[in-house]
């Protein structure tokens, strides 16, 4: 069974498209990712924070993670590398970094003045 993440296309999240999660990658079930694993957080209103993990020691998983990263960027999501453990650092990613611990894909197009 192929996993998907829903990615909002327009404001208001009425329309979403499904981006497949490549085969070696998996959705994180537990609270903490395993050691030497990076996490892609894809936020959407339907699933909340969907977390896809890759093993930074596995070339196949890195390739799949990069493929997914590029696809999500193409769909308009903005990737940010976020420091963990209270580092309070955020950097926008121009390209995929397999050593990134945590990448949050923000639905930037959904944010606005309330």
């Amino acid at each position, binding site marked *: 069974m192929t996993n998907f993440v829903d990615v909002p296309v327009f404001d*208001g999240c009425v329309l979403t498209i499904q981006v497949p999660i490549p085969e070696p990658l998996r959705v994180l079930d537990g*609270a903490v990712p395993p050691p030497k694993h990076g996490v892609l957080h894809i936020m959407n*209103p339907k699933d*909340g924070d969907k977390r896809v993990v890759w093993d930074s020691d596995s070339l196949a998983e890195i390739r799949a993670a990069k493929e997914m990263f590029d696809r999500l960027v193409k769909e308009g999501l903005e990737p940010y590398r976020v420091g*963990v453990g209270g580092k309070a650092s*955020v950097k926008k990613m121009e390209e995929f970094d397999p050593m990134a611990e945590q990448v*949050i894909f*923000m639905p930037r197009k959904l*944010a606005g*003045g309330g």
Partner: protein
Amino acid sequence: MYYIPTAGTSTITYSDNMSLTYPSKGIIYNDDNNKYIKKIINCTTAASSYKSYCASCATTSSWDDDSSCCSRYFMKSKDYVILKDGWGGYNTWPAAPVMPPVPLSDRFHQIIQSRQAPLFIPSRTPIKAVAEEREMRARQTLRRILGDDGFQRFLRNGFVSVRANSGKVYQIYPGHGMTVVYDRGTPIEKLCVVLRGDFTPTDSLITRYVMILHDEADFRALANVWTAPAKRVPNFRQLDTRPLTQIFQSLKAAA
């Protein structure tokens, strides 16, 4: 319904033509159970003779017109209730529980304890536990971002504080709560940025956290800007600031 007899009233006649005589200064009201209650403020004698129990000696005694027990009975509390039940009987008991006097040592101990407690009473709203899976997942992500200590602070305070590159501190609340901007401890403005769609409160907080740390000017440009909130006056407890020896002397004199 309340009847407040004037000072000096001695006889009160109830609606069923039964009457009781009290010296003065009572408050009578008819409660929901159609019982007549008299709250005696000060009583030294009572005309009616009926059974009551003595609060001081905890024995049942007859309360007579000029009973010495009566005066002893009201000596301390001076605030008792007389209830006429549905069968024409009368009972009396203290309007408030009669508490045993607190020993001087215990009172002094309480004063010392209260001095050790923080003076400031915070009015913050802790984050409540939820069962929704999406929100739980978002909180797990936030915990990973903030670290254990930061996440505990978030749960306790109900917001996340982050210092941006400009040095300003942003107080971010979950959900649609406004982000309060502080400059050197002074609130300068409130920014309202929301995520459209049914995002969980903590996902919304994470998004704003990321946006602020990445580019706070962009965040502000996106936001509806409101004037700075008035600086909250800290809620301080009232504390007796006299020296403990002085307090002890006054307590001892009053005992």
